[in-house]
């Protein structure tokens, strides 16, 4: 047997104290295979060892939550016996090394998480962060990631309905690729991963196992350095064709009652799927690796247990149902093999070529995995009012902002995603939230992903609150009732106290907002060690959220629809410019405090606006966020080329009024008579409200003086992305 050396322990990403714990748990020196299994199961990626203690503080329950965190994905009740199943997950490190395959397999992985629970995926979203546009790698990474997401999702026939794309130098060496999948199931047909009972067959279905992706989970749990690109062999290769067959075959098998438990083989492949199923079912699992379908010769037990080959599932069947299941997988031309059996020993036993390669208590891999209460220290807060030039012309700044990397149209991106397949996409990308009809009904789900990382660096707590509040606001703005959240927490190295503080404060902020807004967290994923050469990313706790619309015909979109509508602003404008887009794009500063979120006001304003949409009284709503009020109005004018004439209300200074990023605000447009009623009702409810002007014409006019043609605004808004990707030179900032 291989003698375990300290060097081997280190190469497996385990600390000395962790190795000592392994010796104590095993009562002997582990075998090489066992060391590999510990290494992946105790990795940050699989064990959440730095965050578990803090994640516990998040609210996860509500009457409509069917399944909270801990399964492959969360499940909520959406009425009539239907359930929405969703989750968001990162594939950051692989996507930086190999953008196409990294992003593609990220999409494939999150889809499996959803359909392994019995749901048909009905929508995909993604949240992407790249380095600054002038960085030599950015264009290549954007191109690869976008085509990877499209390449996989388009072939699967699941519409990719929206997401976010941001650029910032802090992601130069460590991009973020977070993918979210939403699926639909019947509440009485939800499949879990608990492998209950002994003597049941453990079956392997899907693609064959190769040597790809070995130690992917360990890679995802370490910082990057300049040599990281040598890790390309640890990136898996996706095969969406096989995944499509696997989806259809699994759903066909799930229509029978042959399955006891099922789990996809994601990070740490066969190891984590078998350990998690045994752990949740309170049983043991014995695997015979000779039976595993293999696409390479002479694979060792170590390689098979740690391979992250894609498009594979592990299931536990009721005894005697093997032939029925096999027939389904053969029809879809997929591999099927009985590779083991459940036992009553609570041990994971791995046999290969007549030898026992691993024999370990399953709880050692789950409950006994280390948990760290890592120390954290608060960074000094950024405060104060940033200075700005009050004389700069407002409309020229608006034009510049609309044509800036973070604010320009993402059409170049989402036109590469099939967003209308399945013929249920009611609101396409480009609005506040995507809306997908529940097939065959009048109901619909609204879906969004949000976070404003530039707020999270100076104030991780308010930034966490704001991410949740903005997601809630975006769902509200289309007319949906926000129901639940999946979080994708992207941070740097948790062993640095300041980063750990960002994590803890971020989670606290998310928790505070989710509690106040009745918006439970039903699942998520942590991606730590997002650093390169010691430089951390902006804290990026991406929030994916889902809301329900009872009647899809009562929906709001951002576009102005008629001339003569009154433009109404709900919410108070104090003119907060700290960390705003205006300050960054026009003044070149990333300064000041992040805007504060008053959660009570958020709820009050949102409930008011949603009520108007649900009653069919308003069909034009936009949340006011990045870039402030004037950017919101421009975004409402551009889709149909309908202009507006608007003026200031309640504030004397133009720049803070038009570009401040105060929270809890919505911009509405409604015909005169309705608008008068809305304003009166808002005042009666003590909601700050203002009439800003009227829609019409083909220009945006301010205070009856300066104006700009909508076509002018649109030209810059639509051209930045295609020009950038076509190779137009980007001036180096700073």
């Amino acid at each position: 047997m291989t003698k375990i050396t300290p060097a081997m322990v280190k190469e497996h990403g385990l600390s000395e104290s962790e190795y000592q714990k392994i010796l104590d748990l095993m009562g002997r020196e582990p075998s090489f295979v066992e060391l590999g299994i510990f290494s992946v199961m105790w990795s940050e990626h699989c064990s959440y060892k730095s965050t578990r203690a803090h994640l516990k503080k998040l609210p996860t329950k509500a009457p409509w939550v069917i399944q909270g965190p801990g399964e492959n994905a969360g499940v909520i009740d959406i009425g009539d016996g239907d359930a929405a199943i969703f989750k968001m997950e990162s594939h950051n490190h692989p996507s930086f090394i190999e953008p196409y395959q990294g992003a593609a397999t990220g999409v494939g992985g999150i889809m499996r998480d959803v359909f392994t629970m019995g749901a048909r995926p009905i929508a995909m979203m993604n949240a992407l962060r790249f380095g600054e546009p002038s960085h030599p790698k950015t264009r290549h990474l954007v191109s690869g990631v976008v085509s990877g997401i499209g390449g996989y999702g388009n072939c699967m026939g699941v519409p990719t309905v929206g997401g976010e794309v941001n650029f910032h130098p802090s992601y130069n060496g460590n991009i973020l690729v977070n993918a979210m999948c939403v699926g639909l199931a019947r509440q009485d047909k939800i499949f879990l991963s608990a492998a209950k009972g002994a003597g049941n067959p453990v079956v392997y279905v899907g693609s064959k196992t190769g040597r790809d992706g070995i130690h992917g989970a360990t890679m995802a749990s370490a910082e990057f350095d300049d040599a990281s690109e040598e890790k390309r062999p640890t990136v898996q290769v996706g095969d969406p064709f096989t995944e499509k067959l696997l989806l259809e075959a699994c759903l066909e098998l799930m229509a029978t009652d042959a399955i006891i438990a099922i789990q996809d083989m994601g990070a740490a492949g066969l190891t984590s799927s078998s350990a998690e199923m045994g752990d949740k079912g309170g049983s043991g699992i014995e695997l015979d690796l000779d039976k595993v379908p293999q696409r390479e010769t002479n694979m060792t037990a170590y390689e098979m247990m740690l391979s992250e080959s894609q498009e594979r599932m592990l299931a536990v069947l009721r005894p005697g149902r093997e032939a029925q299941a096999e027939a389904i997988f053969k029809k879809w031309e997929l591999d099927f093999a009985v590779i083991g059996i459940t036992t009553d020993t609570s041990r994971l036993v791995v046999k290969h070529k007549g030898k026992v390669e691993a024999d370990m208590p399953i709880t050692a891999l789950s409950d006994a995995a280390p948990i760290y209460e890592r120390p954290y220290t608060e960074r000094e807060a950024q405060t104060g009012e940033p200075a700005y030039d009050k004389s700069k012309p407002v409309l020229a700044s608006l034009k510049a902002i609309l044509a800036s990397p973070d604010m320009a149209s993402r059409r170049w991106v989402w036109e590469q995603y099939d967003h209308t397949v399945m013929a249920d996409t009611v609101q396409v990308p480009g609005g506040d939230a995507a809306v997908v009809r529940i097939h065959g009904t009048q109901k619909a789900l609204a879906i969004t992903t949000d976070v404003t990382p530039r707020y999270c660096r100076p104030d991780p707590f308010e930034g966490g609150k704001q991410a949740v509040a903005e997601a809630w606001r975006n769902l509200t703005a289309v007319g949906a009732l926000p129901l639940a959240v999946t979080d994708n927490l992207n941070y740097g190295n948790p062993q640095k106290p300041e980063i750990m503080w960002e994590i803890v404060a971020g989670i606290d902020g998310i928790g505070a907002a989710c509690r106040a807004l009745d918006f439970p967290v039903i699942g998520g994923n942590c991606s730590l060690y997002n650093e390169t050469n010691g430089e951390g990313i902006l804290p990026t706790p991406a929030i994916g959220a889902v809301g329900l619309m009872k009647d899809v015909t009562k929906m709001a979109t951002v576009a102005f629809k008629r001339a003569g509508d009154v433009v109404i602003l709900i919410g108070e404008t104090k003119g907060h410019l700290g960390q705003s887009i205006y300050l960054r794009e026009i003044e070149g500063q990333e300064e000041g405090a992040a805007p504060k979120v008053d959660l009570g006001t958020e709820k009050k304003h949102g409930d008011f606006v949603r009520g108007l949409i649900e009653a069919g009284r308003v069909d034009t709503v936009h949340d006011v966020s990045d870039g402030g009020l004037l950017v919101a109005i421009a975004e409402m004018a551009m889709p149909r080329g309908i202009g507006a004439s608007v003026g200031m209300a309640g504030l004397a200074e133009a720049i803070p009024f038009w570009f401040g990023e105060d929270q809890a605000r919505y911009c509405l447009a409604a015909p005169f008579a309705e608008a008068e009623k809305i304003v009166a009702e808002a005042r009666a409810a003590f909601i700050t409200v203002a009439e800003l002007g009227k829609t019409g014409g083909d220009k945006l006019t301010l205070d009856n003086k300066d104006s700009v043609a909508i076509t002018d605004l649109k030209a810059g808004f639509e051209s930045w992305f295609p020009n950038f990707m076509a190779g137009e030179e980007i001036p180096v900032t700073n």
Partner: protein
Amino acid sequence: MKSAVIVFPASNCDRDAKVALEQMTGKTPAMVWHQDSELPDVDLVVLPGGFSYGDYLRCGAMASQSAVMRSVKAHADKGGMVLGVCNGFQVLTESHMLPGALMRNAALKFVCKPVGLEVQETQSGFTRKYESGQRVTFPVAHGEGSYFADEETLDRLEGENRVAFRYAKGENPNGAARDIAGILSEKRNVLGLMPHPERVVDDVLGGTDGRGLFQSLIEALS
């Protein structure tokens, strides 16, 4: 009107086609698996969009060799109607049921967006309910939709009025020769087109321009 939708491995608009047919004809089409060598008794066969066999070879090339395609060809030879949308159009050219080929989009990227089309030819069972020259909007969603054929074939298609749909001026999303979006077979009973009429039969989805195609089929086949 009785119809069948062929399901290849990784077809992914098969359900959309089924739903549109149900909605427009009131009858549920038969879903036919690619390994079935016999077709049920139907008036219309639909080859749906998707990525048959992963499109890992040329798009539609593998599907054109599948067992069911022999029956689809026989159905067309007898004068039965066949509609191929997107990947279905690719299968039809790979099967030589329609001339030419679908090449990679000129911009080398997948493209999904609503596209303006002109109905060029209304003398067919697929288009008779449209006005000649009528402008309609259908979504496209493809990476390899650039129609190509030699000049002689293109001239012949035009001469025989077999260009059913053309991308409107300035709307060609893929670099297709002569802005061709959809063509008819010589006997005018087979139509292949890249845009998706089945995604625009429902008001809620932002358009109903696709209904004319299904209404034409209903009228022609009843």
